[in-house]
């Protein structure tokens, strides 16, 4: 069974957002980049587990990004992954990203495509569903547990106010969140093997984006906190009602 794991590069969680060019772009100077945690800790690790248990025999990684994303891709290879493909494009349009990935995947043929539930930079969480549509596959989002039995996926996913267990035949696209797997630390063997695993670069399909980010804005500075004495909870309640208007 061949699994494709979609990896995206995102700024480290503690990065301060700094704008440049009058707010039309993000200043990435000094930013540390990491693998999107949902892609790494859940999607990729689950794929690795499926390979370790003999259910899958090949894991491929795909990233949409320019050459500066390669260190992060190699880190993913160090964790596990037989080969990686980088689609040489920059995209913050989810549709574009999905088309690039789907066009690549179509050429190979995967039984299971895993991605994180969303990327922590743009927080869209829709590329997986779009890829599924483009490949005419089913999609299950927000999975908290994935089991593969023969060629059927048994997925426990989050729903409004609870969880649901679904089954679906492969091939399938699943987006992953907490519960699917436990984050792993790349070991020495993997780190050294990463050098030798193929990282191929391919050109993106020629299509135009359907959305564009025009500008960014930082949230307004928060007015200082109003401290209330623990003796005076009536005052807090009154403020929540009359000032904050939340009760």
């Amino acid at each position: 069974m061949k699994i494709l794991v979609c990896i995206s590069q995102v700024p480290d969680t503690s990065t301060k957002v700094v704008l440049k060019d009058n707010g039309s772009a993000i200043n990435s100077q000094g930013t540390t980049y990491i693998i999107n945690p949902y892609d790494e800790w859940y999607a990729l690790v689950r794929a690795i587990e499926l390979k370790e248990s003999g259910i899958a025999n090949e894991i491929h990684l795909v990233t949409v990004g320019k050459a500066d994303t390669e260190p992060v891709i190699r880190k993913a290879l160090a964790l596990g992954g037989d080969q990686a493909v980088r689609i040489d494009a920059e995209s913050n349009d989810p549709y574009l990203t999905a088309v690039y990935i789907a066009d690549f995947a179509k050429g190979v043929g995967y039984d299971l495509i895993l991605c994180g539930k969303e990327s922590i930079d743009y927080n869209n969480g829709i590329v997986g569903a779009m890829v599924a549509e483009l490949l005419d596959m089913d999609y299950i989002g927000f999975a908290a547990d994935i089991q593969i039995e023969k060629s059927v996926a048994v997925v426990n996913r989050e729903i409004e106010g609870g969880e649901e267990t679904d089954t679906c035949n492969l091939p399938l696209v699943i987006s992953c969140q907490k519960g699917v797997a436990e984050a792993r630390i790349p070991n020495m063997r993997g780190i050294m093997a990463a050098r030798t695993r193929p990282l191929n670069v391919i050109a993106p399909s020629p299509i135009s984006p359907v959305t564009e980010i025009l500008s960014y804005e930082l949230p307004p500075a928060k007015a200082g906190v109003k401290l209330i004495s623990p003796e005076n909870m009536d005052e807090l309640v009154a403020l929540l009602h009359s000032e904050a208007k939340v009760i």
Partner: protein
Amino acid sequence: MSVIVLVEHNGRAINKKNLEAVQYASVIAQKTGATVTAVILGTVGAREMESLGQYGAQKVLHVDDARLNDLHTRVYACALLAAVQKENSKLIIALNDISGRAVAPRVAVKLKAGLVGGALSYPDLDKGFVIKKSVFSGKAFAYVNITSEIKVILLTPNTFPLNKIEGKAAIEKLNVIFEEKDFGIKVKEVNKVTGEVPLADAGIVVSGGRGMKGPENWGLIEDLAKEFGAATACSRPVADAHWRPHHEHVGQTGGTIRPDLYVAVGISGAIQHLAGVNGSKTIVVINTDPEAPFFKAANYGVVGDAREVLPRLTAAVKKFNQHK
């Protein structure tokens, strides 16, 4: 021209966030001289459907197929597409929730439509079709322009207040032929967390962290939540230590919530936690440590021990509720 809005229900009622979606569509429709057509899939009462008129829907297209009572994303996408084609709609509204994010993208792909998720504003038509959304896990906003002819917006719940108006929507049946392959996902089991307020859409959330010292102290949190009519949540260390169920974990790698009121008890306010809650309208922080970083992100703060503060606060809320 009609704005299509996907409206979900639980068979009995249509909840607040879905009404917000209708109202959102209606505001945009008024700006562009369009009408609003709500799309309802599966079995629900006529009264509920008609009431969408009170939030600006002129018409409801009802796909009255019992198979659609459960979410089947491919099927929903087909149904929504059929509605869009029938109305020749150029704008589709859905919610930025679990089902919206699974269904709408499929329709967007079918229509090669640009999609903006997590919308926090009405589209700015002067600049094109520009929508504000939250990015970098709440650390910034982005203004995104949709350039395609057909457009899809996923609205963030609890962004705009609801205003009921006079109105009654006309119900029209929509028959859609579905293919067997569209029902590929079979539901084996459903576990609803009953009797409690679901976290994702709760207006008020009371959340506990490591400062609570242990799971045995959570009664204090639950009492306050009960009095507020709130959902309960927790920080990551608490979920990792299994003091609370994992679905309560809010933060960078847990859930993201945007309640009107977020009460954080014994949570220091690490950046990863803030990422899950920085969209809250009002934040109250209760902590024994006056240096806790969370105070910098809070609107109101109480420096004190949860074991003393929570019962007092619960009593104060109870008093407030009685006099309401």
